[in-house]
């Protein structure tokens, strides 16, 4: 097998995810009742036989570092395997922070070429999907391409958020990339870039040595690709599986909830996704206990959960407890959330170690008004509770509310937070 090095861009925060990405980059966001988003690209790499990986971290990387650990979870330890975390460094000429995809790769040029790769695969750590990169590599090789970019047809709106490519027609798997525009206001194609780039080593050398002109070149999509089309053999590769962008609260919530459907497109039960079970002590937790008075329907639960109350249409990460008499509906509860007795939780996302006090009522409204401070982020009726916050006993929190992390009893001057309000 040829020597392939993967570089995962995993440092981005994504402002639209609000309090969920205050303390972690998007790539470290919990997903699907057990995983972190970066588990998906890492498992894809493992299953594709790519065992040398650099992870470019930047924003609040502690959570990501802990999760990746030694890399053993993805079998990436050994003398010729490994995951290397590459935080930004202070350079002599260029400045320290990564300013974009191309800049991040540029700053790690030494790391890349020290590994003497034949190919370099640049990925985003922010997306949920299953893909065999070796098929993309086979396409790349058979086309004698210098660079191949993966494209997908997103099934919903928001095309203006993606880079778009026009490929030569006729190729089932893809074709020569004829035109590429980053986030056009008018769509030029139905094919959106997945920000997966496969470079021949020579082509990457060319890009980094000849085309990078810091500080004006920062992004592959915006600054490099449109120009590269005329100078190298650049191909588009069509990916047909489900792909979750999850860049807004609504998309994130919907992608998680889609796992509860009868035959979910995101078939994580078959995908053989791996995660680091040492993180959040998942491996040390006992199987879930469903009490004699509990009612659990259409939900996902994991080890360490103790359910005595009612859980409907919800996703419970490891260690969530739901006390007797309480009801959880349409919600996503991260690790170690505690729901006390007789609380009612509807359409809520709680971050790790949140406590909902007894008899508190959180979320849920027929026709909610948008969040007043962030109407663009939160208008569909979801309520967000930041990590390590304690919602007081008998408190009432409306829909579209955002409660910031680390809030305690003393931060709630009143026990009623009306719909659409934000507690900072």
């Amino acid at each position, binding site marked *: 097998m040829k020597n392939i090095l993967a570089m995962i861009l995993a440092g981005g925060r994504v402002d639209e995810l609000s309090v969920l990405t205050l303390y972690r980059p998007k790539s470290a966001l919990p997903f699907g009742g057990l995983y972190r988003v970066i588990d998906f690209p890492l498992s894809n790499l493992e299953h594709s036989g790519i065992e040398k990986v650099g992870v470019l971290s930047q924003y609040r990387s502690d959570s990501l570092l802990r999760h990746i650990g030694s890399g053993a979870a993805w079998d990436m330890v050994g003398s010729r395997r490994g995951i290397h975390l590459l935080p930004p460094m202070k350079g002599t000429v260029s400045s320290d922070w990564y300013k974009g995809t191309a800049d991040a790769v540029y700053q790690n040029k030494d790391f890349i070429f020290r590994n003497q790769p034949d190919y370099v695969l640049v990925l985003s750590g922010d997306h949920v999907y299953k893909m065999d990169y070796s098929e993309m590599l086979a396409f790349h090789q058979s086309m004698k391409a210098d660079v191949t970019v993966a494209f997908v047809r997103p099934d919903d709106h928001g095309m203006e958020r993606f880079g778009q490519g026009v490929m030569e027609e006729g190729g089932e798997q893809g074709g020569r990339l004829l035109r590429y525009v980053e986030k056009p206001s008018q769509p030029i194609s139905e094919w959106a870039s997945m920000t997966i780039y496969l470079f021949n080593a020579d082509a990457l050398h060319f890009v980094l040595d000849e085309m990078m002109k810091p500080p004006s070149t920062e992004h592959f999509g915006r600054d490099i690709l449109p120009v590269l089309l005329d100078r190298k053999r650049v191909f588009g590769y069509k990916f047909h599986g489900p792909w979750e962008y999850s860049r807004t609260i609504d998309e994130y919530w919907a992608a998680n909830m889609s796992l509860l459907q009868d035959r979910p497109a995101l078939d994580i039960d078959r995908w053989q996704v791996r995660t680091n079970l040492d993180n959040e002590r998942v491996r*040390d937790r*006992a199987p879930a*206990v469903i009490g004699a008075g509990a009612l659990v329907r*259409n939900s996902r*639960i994991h080890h360490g959960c103790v359910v005595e109350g009612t859980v409907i249409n919800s996703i419970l990460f490891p260690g969530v407890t739901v006390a007797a008499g309480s009801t959880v509906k349409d919600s996503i509860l991260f690790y170690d959330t505690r729901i006390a007795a007789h609380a009612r939780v509807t359409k809520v996302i709680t971050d790790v170690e949140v406590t909902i006090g007894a008899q508190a009522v959180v979320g849920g409204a027929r026709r909610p008004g948008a969040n007043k401070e962030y109407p663009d982020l939160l208008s569909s009726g979801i309520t967000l509770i930041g990590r390590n916050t304690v919602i007081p006993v008998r408190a009432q929190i409306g829909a579209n509310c955002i409660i910031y992390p680390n809030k305690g009893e003393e931060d709630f001057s009143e026990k009623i937070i009306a719909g659409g309000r934000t507690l900072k």
Partner: protein
Amino acid sequence: MRQTVAFLLAGGVGSRLNILGWMRAKPAVPFGGCYRLIDFTMSNAMHSGVQQIGILTQYRPYSLMGHIGSGEAWDLIGRRRCAKILPPSTGREDFDWYRGTADAVAQNLDFAVRYGAQRVLILSGDHIYKMDYAAMVEFHKQKKAAITIAMMRVAWEETHHFGIAQVDDEQRITAWEEKPAKAKSNLASMGVYVIDFEFLEKSLAGRRGHDFGKNIINDAIGVAPVYAYLFSGYWADVGTLKAYWQTNMDILTPGSGLNLPEWGVRTNIDDEGSLGDRPPAVVAPSAKIQNALISAGCVIEGAVLNSVLSPGVHVAAGAVVRDAVIMHDVRIGAKAEVSSVIADKGVVFGPACRVGGPGPSEQPNEKYPDHLYSGLTLVGKKAVVPERIKIFRNSIVEPHTTPLSYGEYKPREGAYIRGALPSEGKALGRPSSR
């Protein structure tokens, strides 16, 4: 706990667990959803600060070796910490296999010497309990004892299974009987001993017998200071099928004393060797779950009541699982009814089959009446139970049986369903005689 080296006696055959123990040593028998019996002792050792533990195996150690792995699951890895499997090795004479518990330790004293042990902690791998061995070692040191034995009060009718001691006001043991027919006390040994290293070396050197209870302890009473350390928590010996099932049910009984979420038991899940990690359990809209333990990777579409489910169990719509212990990756077909059953890994219950039933039965198992008489039904590893078949209480279905194994089968209580080929039993470790 420095200078205390532990030996875990894990050679038990567990013959009374019948087909659950055919292919694995008793300590490797799955328990409580995602654990094996040995995890409870290993976790106690870890929480007590034991740093070196030698695991003495003999009978079918393969499951156990994979399970202990590097010892990392119990944090027993590092420069001084370790969990080592110590298989029997030939000594100066041919076929020097272990002849008893004390003999097993005697042959591996080097392990304790290597770590400069002042005393050894002897444990067994087949009990369910939570205990702080450090407190016991502290007691042993205070009493300047040669041997300290962990003991607890048991029901008088159980005394004939145990080593029984009489003690004075200082908890010094004044009399000892091994499995007495008529006991003078109900203070029973848990098979957990702290023994002074020098004393042990001397006792083993001039040994006449090979067993701790029968020989070493018996000989020491009145000669050396032997003390009883009293334990009074939940403790279960899961040596019989009835006890195995009951102890699993205790997990589901609030106030039983067996509280898995609080005990902090650790296991090694890497020995499953799967390509992906088990996803979160799926509870479908049609599911009904009450009073149950559900592990990762389970898919529940039917009803699960008062049952313990290991990882990867699939309960199809319309199926009912009641009062059952169901191990890894068992599939229960649509409209199947499974009650008061212990099903080993990978069993497939065909659609609409009816296996087991509630309550006791007059008719014990026809082949193993001593093993199965309380009304449970036992289904062996990877057995395929045909659709619509009825299997009644106290029946045993051998591992790897297929629908072809039911040629002459007539549903009855206490049935024994054999594998298709007579030679299969041998390969499966089926005991040649009871």
